[in-house]
């Protein structure tokens, strides 16, 4: 009975897995008593189950527990300001970030030079730029450039909204070649601000958004604030002022800004 034998095997398996009710189990046990093949199958399944159950399990290391604990704010903390912007900083990211590591290391060195330049001439708007530069530098030095890693804008936007109560347009630019890496919180001028991180080839582009009216008056068009080594472009859309920072060239960053503005306007 070929089909019957399959059914019987599933039944024997269900018995071994404790999935049979008492009446069916009893009936099957009685049948197995007179059927050596069925009894042997049952013994094999039981032997396999216990061998698999005995396999060593990976330990959840303390380091990993700390890494997970760092993903969420401590329960007691007030939801707002103590944004701990670099919670993931020490975590050992692999996988997706491996590919980024090389470019990050190079950028960090270049960016530190420009930070020095920016800091040296610290007038008010320059101080803002230097803060932006050093935040970008910190994010590049950190093992992960984002606090919430997701290519799904519907994940990133609510995350930012929950963290800082601000959610700039989180646009999908994948068709233009910029993939969303995630979001993070930046503290600029003492205020936590949402930051979006996109990737172009192996380069990261950070977009920091500040609600308008809270900073210096800005021209409506994109302004080039690039220092040597990295590019910084600023624009505003009437609601937010944006800074895009990256180690890609000015022209490419302008391109990105144009795509971002077009997509944000279409939202």
């Amino acid at each position: 009975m070929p089909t019957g034998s399959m059914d019987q095997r599933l039944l024997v398996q269900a018995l071994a897995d404790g999935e049979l009710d008492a009446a069916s189990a009893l009936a099957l046990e009685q049948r197995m008593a007179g059927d050596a093949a069925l009894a042997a199958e049952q013994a094999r399944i039981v032997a396999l189950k216990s061998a698999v159950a005995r396999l060593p399990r990976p330990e959840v290391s303390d380091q990993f527990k700390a890494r997970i604990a760092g993903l969420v704010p401590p329960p007691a903390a007030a939801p707002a300001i103590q944004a701990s912007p670099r919670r993931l900083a020490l975590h050992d990211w692999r996988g997706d970030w491996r590919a980024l590591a090389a470019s990050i290391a190079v950028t960090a060195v270049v960016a530190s030079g420009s930070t020095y330049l920016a800091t040296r001439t610290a007038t008010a708007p320059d101080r803002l730029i230097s803060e932006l530069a050093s935040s970008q530098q910190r994010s590049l030095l950190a093992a992960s450039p984002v606090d919430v890693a997701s290519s799904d804008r519907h994940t990133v936007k609510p995350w930012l909204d929950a963290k800082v109560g601000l959610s700039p347009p989180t646009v999908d630019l994948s068709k233009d070649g910029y993939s969303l890496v995630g979001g993070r919180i930046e503290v600029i001028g003492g205020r936590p601000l949402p930051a979006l991180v996109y990737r172009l080839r192996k380069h990261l582009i950070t977009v920091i958004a500040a609600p308008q009216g809270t900073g210096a008056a800005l021209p409506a068009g994109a302004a080039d604030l690039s220092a040597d080594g990295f590019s910084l472009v600023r624009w505003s859309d009437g609601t937010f002022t944006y800074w895009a920072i990256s180690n890609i060239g000015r022209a490419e960053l302008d391109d990105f800004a144009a795509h971002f503005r077009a997509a944000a306007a279409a939202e």
Partner: protein
Amino acid sequence: MLSSKPPAERFGEVVLPHLADALALARWLTGNTSDAEDVLQEACLRAYAGIDTYAGGNARAWFLTIVRNVAYTWLAKNRPRALLASGDLADLDELAAGQTNTDDPDGPEAAMIAKADVAALEAAILHLQPPFREVVVLRDINGFGYRDIAAMLNLPLGTVMSRLSRARRLLMMQLGATDEGG
């Protein structure tokens, strides 16, 4: 509806108790602990972001379903070849359902299976195609019942049972062959 508790607290109650179980699942799906940790971290972020979608019930099944889905996304991105082998699942299930008719009806002796060494068994499990591997892991490592597994994988109960049977059959044959070879 939002729970009255803050998300971080719910995360602590719903997700954190199941990290070890989740790590075990992720390791079997990715093949090693360090990749499993990356998958688990991403799964924790998703679980945290979506903690409001947890509507009570089996928290372990809820979280491990996220882990499983993140693991497949991760595999698709980082090891597409590991998933390619899966082929058409309908064919696999047909194969699983029909296999007893063509396979050798007897497996190795239960005693031989019982004394299989850890490395051989681990290798045999990793050798299974993901749809078969996951049912064995969810059943015998994570200890879920058939109905939980069917719900987690969104499969009919019968498919879970036949995949599990097929997976175990393959493991038994592998262990029997290893033993004869060694």
